């Protein structure tokens, strides 16, 4: 695959308010660098993430989508992330089945104390998506003007 040297992917990160969003805040507090390509959307719980949001992001030109929530067992709402886990397992498997590169989607559990993990995860994910290049399979060119 040809890699465009200047390609900068667009990454949408859905973060639950209680763990992962706080983990991202902690990464900021500790000045831990990760690429500006990552844009965070705050949701109360990872279980609020509707597959439609993910598909919409891809449609509008996102190159990767990552969902971050509390570790299993630590959900602020007790069980939300367990449902996230099932929903995303099935959705990602379906996207894979449709021939969409599985490296573009990810679920990661990041606690409020794991600022370093948050930054490392984002660095790694951006690198992974950069290597894949632009998302041509799900985006709609007409949406990108």
């Amino acid at each position, binding site marked *: 695959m040809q890699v465009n040297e200047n390609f900068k992917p667009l990454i949408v990160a859905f973060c639950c308010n209680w763990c992962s969003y706080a983990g991202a805040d902690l990464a900021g507090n500790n000045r831990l660098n990760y690429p500006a390509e990552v844009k965070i959307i705050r949701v109360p719980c990872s279980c609020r993430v509707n597959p439609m949001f993910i598909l919409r992001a891809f449609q509008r030109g996102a190159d990767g989508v990552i969902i971050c929530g509390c570790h299993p067992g630590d959900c602020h709402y007790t069980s939300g992330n367990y449902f996230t886990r099932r929903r995303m397992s099935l959705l*990602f498997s379906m996207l894979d089945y449709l021939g969409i590169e599985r490296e573009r989607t990810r679920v990661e559990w990041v606690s409020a104390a794991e600022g370093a993990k948050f930054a490392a995860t984002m660095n790694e994910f951006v690198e992974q998506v950069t290597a894949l290049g632009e998302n041509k399979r799900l985006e709609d060119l007409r949406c990108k003007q």
Partner: protein
Amino acid sequence: MQTVTRDLLLQKACELLDAGTVNRVYGWQKGQFDYDVTPAVFSSREELEKDFVYNDFCGANFSKYLIKETAGEGKILVFLKPCDTYSFNQLLTEHRFDREKVYAVGIPCDGMADIRLIEEEVGEGVTGVETDGDKLIVHTLYDGDVKLNRADYLAERCRVCKSKKHVAYDELLGEDGDVVDSARFDEVAKLEAMTPDERFAFWQNELSRCIRCNACRDVCPACTCEKCVFGNPKSGVENKAVSDSFEEKMFHIIRAFHVAGRCTDCGECSRVCPQHIPLHLLNRKFIKDIDAFYGEYQAGAEVGSRAPLVDYTEGDMEPGEAVASVDERGGKDA
């Protein structure tokens, strides 16, 4: 060949109408040709005798229509093939109709023929099809009568039939069968074994034919929303037609996701698709994954069971592991 005949069903329907057990009958109505069968409500012996049919083309799953039909007064008689009873139960699980207002007669099924396959074989101009034992006699305009092996012209869903067992009925005509060890996941496994590029090419080709006619949604017994999310202005995805090239993918992925864990694999979506898109392969992928990730689950097998997407265990697989496990299974364990 079907073990129950039109006459037997007609007799049963009339008997129940006469006894006042039911005041309407949900059945198949003949169209211009034998294979041109539509679902219809009959309310008298005369109507039944005139238009009621039962032949090898009565594939329509009646379960979904009960939502509307049970709104009226009195009981309605419905004939259910084994696969229809799963949808029937699933709708009951979701509180979609009043069981008391239905008199369900289970009928055995020996598979339904697919007129598309017949036409592919004999060409245009089919004027009628008769069943004679394990043969189909096709009357055509141009080639006279053509004899075909019935088994080869059954609908795909019937060739990989998952169950001959009725899971719901008030009365059963004929003998009940068993859950069948089906090869229905073979096609999915074949796709899984392809490279991502091949899979993408396959689905790009299939889904790009979609004209968003919504027939799959309208016939689907799991798609019974008062208002579809694609028609809900507050959903953020409201869209009734294909406005861009992604739209049909979004629609089919979301539709399959919304019925995941609730889809009984009745195959109606593919039957009605005017573009011949194998939509059942999306639903079967979810069913296959659910079975592999969370243990075997057949939607509609029993009323009140908890669908896998509204359930969890603490030890469930992580999404990354789950997707990777499809490779390990080599797409071959179907």
